[in-house]
């Protein structure tokens, strides 16, 4: 008998009587989601900018990271400041990336996290190996909590048809959303929630930003109704 069969047989024999799955909490909604998201992100070491569009993003990034070196982006609008060519044969060539600018799908107000699937990462390693990371979402794409987040993920995993409507910034602009044929906009082989910069408190509980991944994280919230006047 293989270990597999042995384990399954013992488990089966020892399983307690059937217990039903509970209903899940309904999850939050309403309120000032972008305000809550920004406050939470700042409390976990990230920063946020409300912007009118990519021109503004390019300006802010130039000012914030004047000597960051190599910049890679999944946003075709940022060709002026970044390599936007797409895929790399070997993730190791990303070793010297100073800044990555990627579009995420949505943010989560309760914890400041952004959900990003691999089709928007260029390479899976990129959001982790870059010295600094910037994520772009639309201001209206913020959900209240993790229950709502998984509802979003479920809904859009198979929703290939409604691409323009749901794909967020990049999809709408016809950018890198490029989900392969037959897969929904939200489908993924790898995806992650990113909440703030990489961090550790392993040495005497002293918080240090920049453990192995990015030392800083900016989230840009695009509000197309916004005017640049008066900003900055």
């Amino acid at each position: 008998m293989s270990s597999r069969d042995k384990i399954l047989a013992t488990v089966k024999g020892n399983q307690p009587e059937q217990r039903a799955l509970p209903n899940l909490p309904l999850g939050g909604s309403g309120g000032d989601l972008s305000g809550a998201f920004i406050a939470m992100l700042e409390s976990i070491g990230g920063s946020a900018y409300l912007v009118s569009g990519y021109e503004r993003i390019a300006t802010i990034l130039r000012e914030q990271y004047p000597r960051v070196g190599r910049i890679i982006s999944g946003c075709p609008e940022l060709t002026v400041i970044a390599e936007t060519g797409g895929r790399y044969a070997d993730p190791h060539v990303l070793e010297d990336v100073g800044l990555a600018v990627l579009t995420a799908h949505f943010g989560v107000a309760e914890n400041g996290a952004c959900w990003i699937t691999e089709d928007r990462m260029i390479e899976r390693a990129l959001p982790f190996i870059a010295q600094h990371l910037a994520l772009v979402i639309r201001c209206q794409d913020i959900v209240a909590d993790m229950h709502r987040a998984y509802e979003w993920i479920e809904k859009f995993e198979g929703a290939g048809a409604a691409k323009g409507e749901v794909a967020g910034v990049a999809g709408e602009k016809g950018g890198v959303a490029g989900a392969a044929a037959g897969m929904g906009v939200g489908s993924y082989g790898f995806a992650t929630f990113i909440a703030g910069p990489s961090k550790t408190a392993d040495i005497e509980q002293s918080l240090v930003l920049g453990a192995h991944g990015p030392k800083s994280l900016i989230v840009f919230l695009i509000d197309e109704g916004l005017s640049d006047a008066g900003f900055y």
Partner: protein
Amino acid sequence: MSGKDHAALADEFNKDEPRVNWHDETLWWVRQKRDKAAYKVPEWEELRETASRIKDNVLSNLSEYLQQFEAAATANGITIHWAADAAEHNAIILSILRRHQVDKMVKSKSMLTEECHLNEFLLAEGIDVVDTDLGERVVQLAGEPPSHIVLPCIHKKKEEIGEIFHEHLGTPKGNADPQFLTHAARLHLREKFLTRRVALTGVNFAVAETGEFVVCTNEGNADMGAHLADVHIACMGIEKIVPLRRHLGVFLRLLTRSATGQPITTYSSHFKKPRPGQEMHVVFVDNGRSAHLGRKDFRNSLKCIRCAACFNTCPVYRRSGGHSYHTAVAGPIGSILAPNLDREKYADLPFASTLCGSCSNVCPVKIDIHEQLYKWRQVIVQGGTAPFAKKAAMKTMNWVLSNPSVYHGAGKAGRWFMLNAPFTVNNGLNPWYKQRDMPGVPKESFGEWYKKNKK
């Protein structure tokens, strides 16, 4: 029992009182952060109850969920392995490494591999394993096991870490600045991430519905390892399954708030398919869990999501240190898990508790930890594996308490000795006098007083 027991090991830790106080206060601070985070979520208790009931469902359908995960993950291109015990787990890892002719590997945090003593095993086979979580790297360089499942080097002062880094990474002697040391580790480990072809990670949750697994880190080390390696091996205990992906919403809300008071870890990475050209393996490990599932009074401990809230709140853990538990998972939860693995070796652990119940109150999946500690004590004493001194003391107590004349005589004698010859009881042989003073001795017992004043 072989080796030193919890009390003896705690004794060693307690020799340095300022350090014990510091350890105690640091962990209590983490516990307070947990409280603040939990209080901010109005539906916190509903979340705990829901999580607990999801896990009830998992335990009652585990064999089906494991097969469901296996089918979905296999369809996604992940290779599934089944390990009955630690030895088989270690052999599977070694065989994957050998097949790729690799003798170096990076590893992110996995308590399961600690439980299986994977590092020692691979080292003996000539494989170099680098732990990449900062805290784990510190204890690895120090030649010690982690003392806490979330904060592996919480027992170390920054000066000691500075010294370890000076010796192994060549940082300047005397520099103990956490920012500086973390940066030194970043550079040191980046080189490892970039040059290792195999990465091993743990698993926080595995979703039966989709065949994906989730790994949570703050540092990003699991992702740095996995995405740069040709081969990603993820090891998980069979109890890590959740039925549906949407259940992750419940568990991810609870996990870090309970652990460190953060709203979520920096990275909650969902691995569903290997990237093109990559190999991805999941190793299911039983190692006593399937038998444990059959123990009605104790099976609930398989719900554990390894947040360590019970460590941080425990008055015994905070003052005895993680190493006093001599097991991979220390603290209250470790004290009820370990006896399932080896009842004799860990017979001391259920006694390393005041049964105050704080662990059960903070547990995000509502494991009845202190009740299980109490039940384990009964099983252990009845099974005859209680520590010798404890057995002898219980026997004596039994004799004294069941013989009224012996009881009265013993009380009288005790009072006389404490009054006239305190050194006979107040000495190093009597464990009750460690860190304790006894109250003043009354002239008579309550029984004697009652007899006199009855009228």
